[in-house]
């Protein structure tokens, strides 16, 4: 893949970072041009896990295509499923029972915490600290257990269906979630002790990978990546779906625009998600967990777009229906794809070690980028 050697300046060398590289968390392939330790250019080569999910979904019915989206951003699979379910509901104009809405939001926020936990551990591991990874997995494991009990799976749950959720929550759900909240609150301080406050970590992160607010918007960055640059882009606040309007939470904004700001956004977001869960966990309304739907769903002719906020940023489902039982065309606007495009801009001129830190703070999930 090392092409165009002639076009590089003297002293530049080209290195393939990936597709098998410990810091790319999967099969991302970056062709980087470096001069000494300084990065001149980063060029992503994608597609190592491209499954053409958009094409696959064209042959699946409106009930079936939802499960495939768990395989894109597998760390926020609930939220991906949620977006698809909302999009179908928008087309069918189904009113989702309030119980289902609350359960969905609870699951979304639990997923967000689990995703950020994994990111936190992996991020620290990119910087050479292995221990936080295991500590993060302890809390993530508690969430996975809750998911397993209610949804029947730990990672790709397929719990959201058009009209509500697949099953009612498990009788233990509320107790387990409260236990998790207590566990999380007792451990969250350790994150700061181990990583956030550490002088080495702060020096590695501060002033690295700068992304201005204007650039963040222009590159289409969303989620914590853009919020670290001070761009307000939380879909839950701006274009509220489900019951997010009624909830009391804060959109975390940091203005640093560097890796540390992005790090702090995610760490602080975990606490916001905990606060959302606390507001809802004792107030799950009684009622149906699923609206009555027809056995075969047929969407009217038209176009439907649903934006949601996943752990990585804005996820969009653009669905074109021709009136049949399968979508005519589906486009998934994945947050990672746009966030990755800013990497080259951010990385130029910084050191090789910083590239790893930047990739960590972008929180890349490769199947989400490739789709």
């Amino acid at each position: 893949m090392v092409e165009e050697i002639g076009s590089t300046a003297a002293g530049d060398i080209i290195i393939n970072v990936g597709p098998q590289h410990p810091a790319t968390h999967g099969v991302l392939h970056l062709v980087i041009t470096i001069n000494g330790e300084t990065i001149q250019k980063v060029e992503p080569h994608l597609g190592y896990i491209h499954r053409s999910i958009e094409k696959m979904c064209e042959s699946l019915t409106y009930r079936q295509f939802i499960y495939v989206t768990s395989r894109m951003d597998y760390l926020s699979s609930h939220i991906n499923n949620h977006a698809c379910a909302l999009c179908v509901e928008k087309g069918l104009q189904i009113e989702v029972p309030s119980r289902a809405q609350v359960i969905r939001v609870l699951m979304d926020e639990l997923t967000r915490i689990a995703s950020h936990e994994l990111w936190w551990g992996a991020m620290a591991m990119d910087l050479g600290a292995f221990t936080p990874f295991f500590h993060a997995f302890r809390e993530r494991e508690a969430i996975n257990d809750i998911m397993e009990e209610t949804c029947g799976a730990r990672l790709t749950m397929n719990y959201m269906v058009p009209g509500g959720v697949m099953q009612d929550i498990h009788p233990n759900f509320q107790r387990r979630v409260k236990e998790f909240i207590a566990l999380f609150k007792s451990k969250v301080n350790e994150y700061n002790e181990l990583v956030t406050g550490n002088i080495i970590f702060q020096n590695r992160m501060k002033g690295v990978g700068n992304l201005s607010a204007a650039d963040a918007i222009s590159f289409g960055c969303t989620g914590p990546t853009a919020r670290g640059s001070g761009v307000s882009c939380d879909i839950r606040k701006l274009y509220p779906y489900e019951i997010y309007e009624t909830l009391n939470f804060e959109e975390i904004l940091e203005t640093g625009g560097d890796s540390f700001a992005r790090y702090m956004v995610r760490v602080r977001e975990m606490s916001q998600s905990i606060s959302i869960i606390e507001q809802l966990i004792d107030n799950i309304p009684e009622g149906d967990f699923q609206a009555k739907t027809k056995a075969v769903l047929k969407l009217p002719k038209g176009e439907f777009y649903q934006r949601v906020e996943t752990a990585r940023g804005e996820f969009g489902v653009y669905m074109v229906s021709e009136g049949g039982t399968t979508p005519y065309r589906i486009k998934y606007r994945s947050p990672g794809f746009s966030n990755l495009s800013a990497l080259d801009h951010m990385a130029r001129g910084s050191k090789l070690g910083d590239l790893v830190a930047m990739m960590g703070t972008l929180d890349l999930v490769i199947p989400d980028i490739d789709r």
Partner: protein
Amino acid sequence: MTIEALKEKITALLPSVLFEEGGQWPTILVEPADWHKVAVLLRQDDSLSFDFLFCLTCIDWKTHLTMVYHLDATSYRHNLVVKVKLEKVNPAIETVSDIWQTANFHEREVYEMFGVNFLNHPDLRLLILPDGWEGKNPLLKDFEDPINMIKL
């Protein structure tokens, strides 16, 4: 800005565009030749300032292709959908990656998946598909791949 006000503003600015009804957001139809000019206006006009291109894709309608651009204005929070109809054979359109940098990657994706040629694009190469897939466009409806596609 309300949807009506937005529509009025756009009509005043671009008298030639047509509106399409029924969508979630105001939708305008633009001719391929005009698109770059329109895009510059949408981005730079102070009361519109669509600075966030959050979705860029293409739809294969068998007879023709349609480019769909979803725009958002981060300062006003209004949205606009722009559709551009392209020929089925040798589709080509001006790039907008100089206006919204995110279009760079999204246009490369559309280029390989639908074969749309983006004029003046800085780096129009395959992004996701491996080498040797030039000219084969998987997301077109008439694409056939007997080895990799499993029919249910």
